[in-house]
């Protein structure tokens, strides 16, 4: 698999945490920080999507700026002096994690626990009466579940469903402010909506609010165990496009399908067949 090279870009000089470095023009501060080996938490950032910079957990301090800058979307400019670990940046990250942790169920969000510990975030400080986005999971089809109690409104599913990838536009953000939710028109069930069940929203969801029905049921039953899972990347056999599938296998059964985001053809996107059409692989004929 070959990844096409990008045309060469001019290098510009910036300073990250006191160290001068040169980064290609057009790179974001997040790119630069990752190059410099800085660990910056991200939630709404998606490697296959345009940054929405809604979660504000990746903020860094840029010298001379009145407010903090979202590293995921702010482009590096010559002479920028960036502090990734300043008091102000750490404070905002901590509060953002507390605000999310107190309103959203982050139990299936990768890294959330580690970040909470690193920034000393204490979501419980807002008290037991703090408003949450809790609501029962929406199970309206056999393929995937929408558990919006885990939704941080990062807009990634909306972007993946809409103009950035699938062009189905089945879901969008409805309502305003704290009451905003991801919704179909008039909260119709997915089966009545424009959803084509490609599962590309599930692929980009950073919190597990969207998950395979399979995974949802196994988590409910307590049998979901990522430690016991293997991942095998193969090629989808349904058509000639050649999408890559990563099969997540637990106890010799496919439990989830993802796709490598660095695949130059599909960038992590699949169709309903590649994403959900794996049952035939493990059907065992009853009559032998």
């Amino acid at each position, binding site marked *: 698999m070959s990844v096409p090279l990008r045309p060469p870009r001019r290098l510009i000089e910036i300073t990250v945490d006191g160290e001068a470095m040169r980064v290609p023009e057009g790179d974001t501060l997040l790119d630069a920080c990752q190059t410099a080996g800085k660990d910056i938490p991200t939630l709404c950032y998606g490697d296959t999507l345009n940054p929405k910079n809604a979660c504000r957990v990746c903020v860094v301090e840029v010298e001379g700026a009145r407010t903090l800058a979202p590293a995921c979307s702010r482009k590096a400019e010559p002479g920028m002096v960036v502090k990734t670990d300043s008091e102000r940046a750490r404070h*905002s990250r901590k509060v953002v994690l507390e605000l999310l942790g107190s309103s959203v169920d982050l139990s299936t969000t990768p890294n959330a626990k580690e970040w909470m510990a690193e920034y000393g975030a204490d979501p419980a*400080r807002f008290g037991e*009466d703090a408003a949450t986005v809790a609501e029962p999971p929406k199970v309206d089809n056999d393929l995937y579940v929408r558990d919006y109690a885990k939704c941080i409104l990062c807009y990634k599913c909306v972007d993946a469903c809409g103009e950035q990838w699938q062009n189905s*536009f*089945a879901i*969008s953000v409805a309502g305003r402010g704290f009451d905003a939710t991801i919704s*179909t028109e008039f909260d119709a069930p997915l089966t009545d909506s424009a959803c084509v069940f490609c599962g590309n929203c599930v692929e980009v969801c950073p919190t597990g609010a969207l998950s395979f029905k399979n995974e949802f049921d196994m988590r409910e039953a307590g049998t979901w165990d990522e430690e016991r899972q293997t991942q095998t990347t193969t090629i989808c056999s349904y058509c000639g496009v050649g999408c890559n599938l990563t099969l997540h296998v637990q106890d010799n059964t496919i439990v989830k399908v993802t796709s490598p985001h660095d695949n130059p053809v599909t960038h992590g996107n699949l169709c309903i067949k590649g994403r959900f059409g794996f049952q035939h692989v493990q059907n065992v004929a009853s009559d032998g």
Partner: protein
Amino acid sequence: MDLRFRDAEPTAEERAVVDALLGAPSSAWDGGERTEFDLRFATQAPRVARDRRDLLLPALHAVNDRVGWISEGALDYICRRLTIPPAEAYSVATFYSLFSVKPRQARMLHVCTDLACAAKGAEAVRRDVEERFGPPGVSWQPSPCLGLCERAPAALAIEAGDPPVNAVYGPCSVGQEWSATTEEPPVEAAVPQTRACRQAPARPAPTAERLAHEGQAPPGEAAQEVSSDDGRSAGPSELVLLRRIGVVDPLSLDDYRATGGYTGLRRAFELGPTGVIREVLESGLVGRGGAAFPTGRKWEATARQLDRPHYLVCNADESEPGTFKDRVLMEGDPFALIEAMTIAGYANGCALGYLYIRGEYPRALQRLENAIVVAKSRGLLGDDILGQGFSFDIEIRRGAGAYICGEETAIFNSIEGFRGEPRTKPPFPVEKGLFGKPTVVNNVETLVNVPHILEMGAAAYAAVGTSSSTGTKLFCVSGTVERPGIYEVPFGATLRDLLDLAGGATGELRAVLLGGAAGAFVRADELDIPLTFEGTRAAGATLGSGVVLVLNDTVELPGVLLRIAEFFRDESCGQCVPCRVGTVRQEEALHRLSKRRSEGDLVLLREVGQAMRDASICGLGQTAWNAVESAIDRLGVFTAKESS
């Protein structure tokens, strides 16, 4: 685009109002009846329709105005007509508080419960309405500031129908009759200063040379030099922006021209676009919407952009609680805004300007619509204005109840038919604004200054006020004060001067909220703060949009703070976490604090407030905590300093 719909059908009425706005559909491809031809051939109609996504908001208004709410059938029909996915149209419709996607009564009463009205007893009115009409949402709802603060407590009834009927009430009282027809007082009732000066309408003295050039008769004895003798006095003879309010008929272009109207535009054509920008730069005019950015610099940067077309957006989405100056300008002197926009369009190389007015201003809307029609019929708008070869048109867009749409990039999304969420800056509007093109966004009051600058010349304009705050400023005085209303004073007058002009506070003055919900409180012993951008900044406050909300000792401050927090929680668009959740957590903490003092909750307020200020996307989240913070720090609310 492959759209999928459920089986909801529009009613004949819904279909008719949408067609009245968009014209009849050309084929099944854009919402018409399906014919044999449509089954065999595709047309360009959907692509053409898709480029008019900006008609989504007007289409939603059309249905809401006629029926009172937006049904799934109506929404789907709009989507078919404009080729918009129904989920997206639904997301837009649910963004605005004046729209409902659930059935409700045709007549909705919006009872203002915001700061200025609360200080004058709005809570009792709200309770009375709730007792008589039941829980909110069906026939009435509490409302953020309606911009009727001089008549507080106020209410607005919007009755859907053909045509929709609006009624404005204020001051309201318990047991109030909410009859369909009310006589709204004339706009000058909101301008106490005009009553004093109606006999001698002041206007700047045009120079003899300019008059000769224009072939106009001098205005005679009424003309007075506009300059402040000591920069502090604020006599009625100095009215500049308000000089026509109550003096002219706001529907009459002849009246407007007889009082110096359109001399600014003529002067602009003499100066040329760069000349106009130079005048505005030299005048020192800065934006009056709250951010105080130098207008000339904004114009210079926009005019310079090579990308075409350029757009002008007039921000008339005046929603900062306690602000009603733009309403008064638009209701009392609508042609001035039309002329000012034409000049701004000329200077910035725009062929089209959008006037985005908040949905709660029916009278201002009607007068501006009249002004545009009349100006067009007289060759002052449209093609080849005044025979100068310059063409400019104005489209009005009505907001639908969203404070955030007054943010300079959210207003673009709203006009374009998307949710009114602020965009990330950079890029700034001067580079990529409305429809991704260079755009200049100005507040109503800012624009209305421009014809005066051109009439009197930059130097004369800059001589008024102080060196860094030039000209005059409109202040929205409301709350517990003798004569609430809009006051125009030269920059440099102190808060005390202004309050004296308004007859002083009623009762014992406790505090003044400067700049609105995003502003700051000052104490009764700080009245010598000069009302300039630099003066208020030095005092740790802000002029904001010119709100001066007077609170006496009968007003419960914790209740005011709670209302501010509630306002921001309601009006946060929900895009970024610090603002979406932070405003909720602050409101919760203030609820607790209003019951019992707690150091922990004060720390929590400060920590959340700091993160909102540092990490929110736009000015709403960044300033949402300012007023509450100033009340704690300056007034000692919730702390030991409190002298209650």
